């Protein structure tokens, strides 16, 4: 017992402030520009049809994007001049549908008015999102400090956090869990599968993105979203819940 205590005290405090920036190779949102021919090439290689082009403008649907980097790769191969696409080395911010993204920064500054109880639901994920969700509880991210708790039953939860593309085998479980949530309720689609539903294409076993089955309030881009991005999204969700309570 004392030896365990001794070992615990050997460590310094591990908990860090939340930062969205990442390592040099991290494949975050796309920035930069390129000419229309190159952009068409980028759109063609996108495995999830997230890269849309009109003329020499493009936009990336971050709900669908799996951040594989193929558009940037194709651009680097094709573009001879300096104009080219590159990744930002930070997370994509959560996509809210009710209020705008500016909510986020305010929430971070302001102390939270209430806590958020979350029920996780794997609707057909590859488990990467689930592992990152688990990582939020480690001492480095220490999710509890924000008043966010994972609960054992949807009946105890304010929000359903859905990961994975909804499969036929789990469609009923998702519907029933949503119905079991008390009002007011929120749903978060976490990661490219739940948010965009294009990761594996349309198959006989797949229903699609979470919003095909239940109404979704907040989307978190990423494949998987890093724990920091998930925490940002949870804080935004807590704020949305506060609005709903009024």
């Amino acid at each position, binding site marked *: 017992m004392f030896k*365990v205590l001794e070992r615990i005290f050997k460590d310094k405090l591990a908990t860090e402030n939340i930062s969205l920036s990442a390592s*040099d*190779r991290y494949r975050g949102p796309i920035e930069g520009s390129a000419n229309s021919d190159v952009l068409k090439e980028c759109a063609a290689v996108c495995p999830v049809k997230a890269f849309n082009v009109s003329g020499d403008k493009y936009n990336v649907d971050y709900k669908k994007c799996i951040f594989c980097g193929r558009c940037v790769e194709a651009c680097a191969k094709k573009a001879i001049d300096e104009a080219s696409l590159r990744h930002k080395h930070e997370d994509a911010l959560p996509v809210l549908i009710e209020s705008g993204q500016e909510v986020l920064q305010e929430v971070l500054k302001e102390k939270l008015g209430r806590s958020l109880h979350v029920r996780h639901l*794997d609707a057909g994920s590859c488990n990467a999102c*689930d592992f990152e969700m688990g990582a939020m509880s480690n001492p480095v*991210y220490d999710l509890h400090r924000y008043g966010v708790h994972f609960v054992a039953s949807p009946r105890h939860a304010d929000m359903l956090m859905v990961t994975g593309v909804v499969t036929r085998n789990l469609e009923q479980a998702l519907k029933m869990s949503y119905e079991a949530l008390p009002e007011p309720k929120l749903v978060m689609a976490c990661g490219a599968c739940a948010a965009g539903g294009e*990761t594996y294409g349309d198959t*006989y076993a797949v229903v699609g993105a979470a919003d095909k089955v239940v109404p979704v309030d907040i989307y978190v881009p990423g494949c998987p979203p890093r724990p920091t991005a998930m925490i940002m999204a949870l804080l935004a969700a807590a704020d949305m819940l506060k609005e709903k309570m009024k």
Partner: protein
Amino acid sequence: MMTTIMPEAILMAAEKMSAGGKHPLTAMFGRDETATGVGYVIYCYFEIPEEKTVDGFKVVFNPNGSLEYDSITHVVPAAAWYEREIKDMFGLVPKGHPDLRPLVLHETFPEDFYPLRKNVKVNAKVRGERQFKVRTAKGEGLFEVPVGPIHAGIIEPGHFRFSQAGEAMLQLDAKLFYTHRGIEKAVEGKTPYEALPIVERICGACSIANTWSFCQAVEKVVSVQVPRRAEIIRTLLMELERITNHVGDIGNIPAGVGFNPAISLGGRLKEKLMRLNEAVAGNRFLRGMIIPGGVAQNITSELCERIHQVMDEVADGVEDMATMFHEQENFQNRIQTTGIVRNQTAMDLAMVGVGARASGYAHDSRSDFSYGVYDELDFKPYTKTMGDVAARLLVRIGELSASFEMVDKLIELLNNCGEQELSVVMEYVEGSGWGISESARGSNFQYVALDGDGRIDRLFVRSASYANWPALPIAVQGDIIPDFPLINKSFELCYACIDR
């Protein structure tokens, strides 16, 4: 070249190939070859350790004739799941199979829906009804505990039905395949390069293992030699993935008994490794590294330096955890003699990976096969004989130190590797091939067949967890139900990998 046999001869062929269990069943899967006039085919692959290869036979069915065959499960118990899956996917029926319930397709699919037949569209949205009864034990004083598919913690979905005699688990029936996404069908008609993002996303925890097996299979079809630098990098990535998973697991097994200081320390160490993975690959699950023909990104000497440094820190932490486990008597009390898998059971079920090695069955693809640069690393499988939770924990700790040593050697190999080339150009041709790699959970087998346009005609994925899941219901028998989370975590089986 595999021998082709008629359905009547399957039992005899299986008996001969398995050689009394000396050659474990690697995989058994169907393929629709009606387009080329062959018919429906079942492929059976057995591992031939003495030749460091797999071999087997294929059984051809006339699509207009009888689609029944004699189940080989009585001779090769490991075939039980495969035969059920083939029935779900192709409608080939194993006569005399002890459990003919569906496996992959749940209640909302109609009875006569066989998705992997070529005449079924990839996005066929047929709805119907089928029976999928969960098995329970009946008797005076017995009761049932249903758990899942949505669990209390943050884990993947599966339904467990415990038949209880008081606190003791009499029987466990697991209904799985909830996250079945139809991946094997989804990649059909895609080039290997197009299919890669999907293969990388079969499972988060086994990204490298799945991608590596897939690429090996594709490279076998094309018969290209991957540049040496790429082989070293792939091996290094595989060991990084193993270390990340093993550290995560030894930090998660204590969660089965609420041993918080160990969970906390494990979580910190795993986070260090995840960040290292991100620095190496640009993704915390090492995605975007392995491509058919080689690797996409180099591991520079600066990154090697960083890997060295993190490995040293993590190795220290693992040592501390091992000491913590060893000294904590009440923890030892819970993990010893809990969830035993006997050696014979492990061999009968053709178990792989940590699960097999903790039961004294030295199955490890890194030494059983020749791939990557493992031959140069002087590697021997690490085994324990007790087959309990403690043994599975100790095997992981033992393997971690072996992996730390390997990483050192691999970095040295990388620094001494003059060749800078990272990948070769692939020109896809018609043919089929298999690939194998040892994931953190065990041997990961994949079969790929390409058509004349170099597009995927069939992909079969047999992850390590597929081979080990059937052992879990056996391991828990007689233990008390509060020990189930502990036993489950000690196997740490993927759902995403098996469900596909």
